[in-house]
């Protein structure tokens, strides 16, 4: 049902460049080749894996007790019309961290590009998982919100540890959280998706909804972090 065996392809190049804050100008052949080479390096070491659990929201739309660490208004708003939640954690594995660390010594430019490739790949893996959920739920006439992650809106990044614990991601897929809320392997994502029986309108991420609005490195050069 879930296809997580996702690989980076030529089509992902623009996405990789976007993470590198590329401004859309033409790039030369050498750089094209360099990006493709870095994609292959990441494909070779990435091991996508994910875990999820589903919870019913309580009658009044509140979070079940086990999930009371979800605080703030953004997430409340996000799941306003939902009756069920999917919590997921995904990763492309520690091999990616190791490969990037090694490449930093050999060629920092490659390391930087590989880092972007990793970001692109983990998002692609999450997209694939989300699409499967969407398809599956649509059969029951249910609709999904977009993936909402800690650090977005006013949902603090500090809940990362509780999130990872509640889906048992450390034992199941090897995702760890540092004291400052950083996930290891680095290219890992936790996300919450709401399930609703109504067609949802606010399905798009917006800059206005993001707590990095003022400091966003993408906005500084006029691009966005989402497609």
């Amino acid at each position, binding site marked *: 049902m879930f296809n997580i065996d996702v690989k980076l392809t030529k089509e992902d190049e623009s996405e990789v460049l976007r993470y*590198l804050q590329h401004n859309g*100008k033409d790039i030369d052949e050498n750089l094209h080749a360099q990006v493709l080479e870095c994609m292959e390096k990441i494909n070779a070491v990435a091991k996508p894996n994910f875990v999820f659990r589903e919870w019913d929201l309580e009658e009044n739309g509140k979070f079940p007790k086990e999930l009371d660490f979800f605080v703030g208004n953004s997430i409340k708003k996000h799941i306003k019309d939902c009756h069920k939640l999917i919590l997921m954690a995904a990763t492309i594995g520690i091999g990616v961290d190791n490969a990037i660390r090694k490449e930093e010594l050999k060629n*920092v*430019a490659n390391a930087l590009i590989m880092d972007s490739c990793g970001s692109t790949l983990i998002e692609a893996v999450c997209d694939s998982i989300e699409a499967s959920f969407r398809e599956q739920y649509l059969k029951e006439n249910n609709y999904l919100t977009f993936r909402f992650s800690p650090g977005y809106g006013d949902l603090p990044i500090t809940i990362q540890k*509780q999130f990872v614990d509640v889906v048992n991601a450390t034992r199941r897929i*090897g995702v760890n959280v540092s004291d400052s809320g950083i996930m290891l392997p680095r290219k890992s994502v936790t996300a919450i998706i709401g399930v609703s029986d109504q067609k949802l309108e606010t399905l798009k991420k917006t800059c206005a909804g993001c707590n990095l609005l003022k*400091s966003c490195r993408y906005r500084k050069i006029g691009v966005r972090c989402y497609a």
Partner: protein
Amino acid sequence: MHNLLILDGAMGTMLQAAGMKAGEHPEVFGFDNPDIVKNIHLKYIEAGSNIIYANTFGANAHKLEGCKIDVDTAIKNAIQSAKEAVAESKRDVKVALDIGPIGELLEPLGVLRFEDAYDIYKEMVVAGEKYGADIIVYETFTDLYDVRAGVLAAKENTKLPVWVTMTYETTGRTFTGTKIESMAVTLEGLGVDAIGFNCSLGPKEILPLARKLKEWTTLPIIIKPNAGLPNPSTGEYDLHAADFAKLMAEYKSFGISYAGGCCGTAPDFIKELKSELDATEAKEGKSVKVKTGICSANEMVELNGVRVVGERLNPTGKKRFQEALLNHEMEYICKVAIEEEESGADILDINVGVPGGDEVALMREAVKAVQSVVNIPLQIDSSNPEAIEAGLRVYNGRAIVNSVNAEDDRLDLILPIVKKYGAAVIGLALNENGLPTTAQERVDNAKHILDRALEYGLKKEDVIIDCLTLTVSAQQDQARETLEAVRMVTNDLGLHTTLGVSNISFGLPARSHITENFLIQAMYAGLDLPIVNPNIEGIMNAIYSYKVLSGEDKDSVKYIERFATVKTETKVVTVSNNGEVTKEMVEDAILKGLKEETYNNAKKLLEDHGELEIINEYLIPALDTVGDLYEKQVIFLPQLINAANAASSAFELIKERIANKGEHNVSKGKIVVCTVKGDIHDIGKNIVKVILENYGYRMIDLGRDVDIKNVVDTVVRENVKLVGLSALMTTTLPAMKKTIEEIRKVSDDCKVWVGGAVLTKEYADEMGADFYAPDARSSVDIAKTVLG
């Protein structure tokens, strides 16, 4: 022989069923509800457990931080509950101190230092022994390094037996990449008493992993699987007690010593398990010959053919390497290591002995750094026992020690260390009477080393003999003696042999001919661990060819692989007047990121230009041009870095020249950079470093997750006038602010600049930074402003 013993099942799920809330610490819950814990133990004992695990899995200082009980109290209480259950049951049941991972990944994956992990485990095991645990069990580990720290802590601070079970994926690797064979060989070497698997998979999935483990260890095996695989949506496990027990019965066939259950298993599982496995004999094939080898966590090198030992991590006669060691430039050393691995080395010899350097500290530092970037195992090269121990202690795998000789004093000094860490050892075939002159003397020395090694509990296959390569231009007759000794040690003593091969040709012209010829003859005589420079093509060609002719390279697969793909890189040829290198050419090559060409340009320029002149007149102006183009957004970040990389190939050459002249390096001033405490994002910081280095600044990179004290101490010690701090998380900005405040306390004129994704000019001002760098390029301007 004893019968297989039954362990217990899950504790966590039982506690939850008894009312423990999600997110609550099991140890704190157990402290508040000792009767609940005792009753769970009792249920397992009644179900048939011979050994129960105390409720101490997360009773470490890291996890209990901020809780109302400390480690000692948690362990005391949990063991007491277990012991009360045992007393009540009136059965002969042992209590294990159960220890799970700390909950922070160790370096280099995470930020926890090996030494700190050791201290955390030490606190636990000391308490465990004090309160009467019978066994120490480390379980659910995925990182061999982490559990090594635990095992050492237990072995050095208690007398209790130590067991280890790790958690694997069906691929035969843990999440961090540890192989089964590496786990087996490393832990058996450290003197662990039983090993095996727990968690992550069910009995069916673990079975093939257990078979593999059996091939690599003589130790008793522990199997403690989950109740099958979890339902993804609910997290419930799919096996019932009876099915679980049936699947566990499969393990009878090859003999395990301890069986129990992990996640999802309850007392009924243990009851069924007991009736299924009762009266099964525990087969612990002590006499069985198992596989062994030299390994890192992720790679096993079996010694069953010619294995190339890379020799380049050695400062002898290499000024630049010496300088790198003295300056703690581990990056330089790591780069050499990566080159050797990529050239086909199987094992890396590592020697850090340099006049004026602290060999013990350097060995520790270098082993940590090198093992973080190469997979192949290491050979710790020193004659200083303390340096050897320092290297072995932090080495995540099973290393070779290079070396000891046949003198009893030396053997008594070195062999206990080799034994303690389960390493292999090279014995030089010489003794207090000096260099032997005949093959027989060498063999006699080898025999003595072997005998003494066996006395110390090493196995025969752990001993490697160096039959001593002498320089053929000085002692011509010795080449034959060395070769004959290799043959005799191999055939008559049945030991592995090693030689520092290239020494043979010292003092002769066209050394490679002699070296390669000697290498081939030596391999034919039995040499299986040649210490060579793997970057020399001829050497590696000889080894690849030899492996075909000896039959080791089956169907010539590796040979064909090496030579089938002929490199077709086209070299860029730059045409110019009189072959002179112009400023335009330098700039063009750098702008295009052409490393080799930039290197060659610099080489040519060095013929009639000074080092400083090249830096100031050629390289820096080119980099400025590149920087301008970046600012104008004509090129973007990867291209800027490519240019910096190209330039650094020229810088490295210039540094080497200056080092060889015995002069100190050119430096426009020292700059400290680091990623602040709590943060581990360091690519941005590394980019800044590479770029600034090319402007002639001496970069002191403190790394990531850096303690404030470390920054402050460095500023004072090195009298630093500029510090760059990086942070990428909103959660780590406070650490940045604090770092600045502390720097201010110790220095009036040290400037600080900050950068990183979440930063803005406003944040930078607010936290009192002198400068804000929106991108890597702007760091150059800041450095120029402050240091010139």
